[in-house]
């Protein structure tokens, strides 16, 4: 019993996994449609963008920062691809790379203002959020655009139009970033920077580089999530990510997955499971015909509960009672 509790406390993802499975079983018991092929595709497509953005959010939260602009970076990226191909005459692949690099560059800007100019990241990225929103709305005249013909084929299929593309990308990205956070120098330094900035820099960790790098990773992932969403819905919509929606979903997924906002701890697997729980909830409630409105009530309660659990679990572990 003691051993089980120990393992459970050590692997914080376990509790989210239990919730995800429980929710799944519940919805299966009330509606057959939940595990139908089409619906599983739906759930995977709802989970993936949130999970991908949340991976970047976890890295940032662990290093003690936050990025409020990832959601609109997701909206900007497909437009960049559209402008590059249709207006500037770029070939498909370079245009897609440019779209991703736009996210990277916005992350670099956020990191620079936060680390070098010492503006708190909450404020930095709030500013960036509005600036990028303005750029998207101005340049698109707030109208959706067509997916450019050059990418509306195999490339589009690979990047999100195909049924399981979302799931595939999410699995790859979650795996890579999980290894990055838990098994590499970069991950160790990310935890150190968020846990004890001064101590980390005393030990020779390049704290500024770690933070800026994580902003860049987060921005790139935001751009990528925007691209795969555009290909899935087959439109470049200025409202991809729903303004703040995608960002808040990502932060929620991270928090539900056991990442502390205070920095120093968090898990990538947890945030992916958090994204799955949110997708299951929204999808399942939809299927059984509950209006979408209580979804927010449940989401809010889930965030509060998991945060309270997170804080008390940390205290328990610190008290050495594991």
């Amino acid at each position, binding site marked *: 019993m003691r051993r089980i509790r120990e393992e459970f406390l050590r692997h914080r993802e376990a509790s989210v996994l239990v919730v995800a499975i429980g929710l799944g079983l519940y919805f299966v018991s009330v509606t057959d449609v939940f595990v139908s092929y089409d619906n599983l595709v739906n759930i995977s497509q709802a989970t993936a963008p949130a999970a991908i953005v949340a991976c970047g959010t976890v890295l940032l939260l662990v290093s003690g920062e936050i990025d409020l602009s990832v959601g609109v970076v997701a909206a900007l990226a497909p437009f960049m691809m559209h402008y590059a191909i249709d207006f500037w005459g770029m070939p498909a692949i370079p245009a897609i790379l440019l779209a991703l690099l736009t996210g990277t560059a916005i992350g670099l800007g956020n990191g620079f203002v936060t680390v070098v100019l010492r503006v708190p990241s909450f404020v930095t990225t709030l500013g960036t959020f509005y600036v990028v929103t303005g750029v998207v709305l101005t340049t698109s005249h707030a109208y959706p655009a067509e997916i450019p013909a050059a990418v509306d084929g195999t490339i589009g299929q690979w990047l999100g139009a195909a049924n399981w593309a979302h799931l595939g990308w999410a699995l790859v990205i979650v795996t890579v970033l999980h290894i990055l956070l838990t098994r*590499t*120098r970069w991950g160790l330094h990310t935890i*150190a920077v968020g846990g*004890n900035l001064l*101590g*980390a820099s*005393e*030990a020779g960790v390049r704290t500024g580089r770690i933070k800026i790098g994580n902003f860049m990773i987060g921005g790139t992932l935001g751009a990528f999530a925007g691209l795969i969403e555009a290909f899935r819905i087959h439109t470049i919509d200025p409202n991809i990510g729903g303004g703040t929606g995608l960002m808040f979903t990502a932060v929620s997924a991270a928090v539900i997955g056991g990442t502390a906002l205070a920095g120093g701890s968090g898990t990538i697997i947890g945030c992916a499971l958090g994204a799955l729980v949110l997708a299951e909830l929204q999808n399942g409630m939809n299927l059984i015909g509950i209006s979408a409105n209580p979804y927010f009530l449940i989401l809010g309660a889930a965030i509060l509960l998991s945060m309270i659990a997170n804080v008390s679990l940390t205290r328990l*572990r*610190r008290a050495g009672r594991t």
Partner: protein
Amino acid sequence: MTAILRTESLSKRFGAVTALQEVSLTLEQGEVLGLIGDNGAGKSTLVKLLCGFHQPDSGRILLDGEEIVLKSVRQARSLGIDIVYQDLALINELSVYHNMFLGREHVGFGRLLSNRRMRRLATEHLEAMGVRIPSVDVEVAKLSGGQRQAIAVARSVYSRSRILLLDEPLAAMGAKEGALILDLVSDLKARGEVSIVIIAHNYAQILEVCDRVNLLQHGTITFDKPTARTSLQELTDLVVAEYRRARTRGAGE
């Protein structure tokens, strides 16, 4: 014995306040030097000059007889002079062995962390230094203040520091915890690889582990004797006498 570290007429002012005045201190190879004195006597300032945190206004610092100019803590560390703070140094969220290797991790295939190797090396090193903890896998946050300090010291020794500066290593520590640190210092002394400067308030403990005691008063070293030739009584008398003089002066004004 040869002096590993020497200062010649070190002075430091902060605005109108003279924190250190012409301090000449000598630390022998393998020696444990106790630095005592009242609050505001300049102990911490002196240590901060030696670890590169502050720069002196005048005077010289010599390492192995050669003059060095310390511009930063990092530079001092690269020369083998390391300051160990009680709590600042470690990352609570990381395991003991990750803390031991933070900033100089071992990596293997695909640049992934060689956790097994670091775990083994950390265990061996801590055992060799007589630092007892449940396991190198525990998060540092779970350890006591004494254990944390011991790990910070062990890490410093592992990174081949030759001179350790311990700023109030026994502050806010129970008797048992304090004994842990004193044992560690004694062990290090017996091995003779590092030389240590300890700042402390508790004279009895200083006498227990130090080879020599320096008393700082008003930014100057006023007393320098081997521990064997002084006593707790003498040190206490010196500080009390200073206190009395200050009070008489105060009353006379």
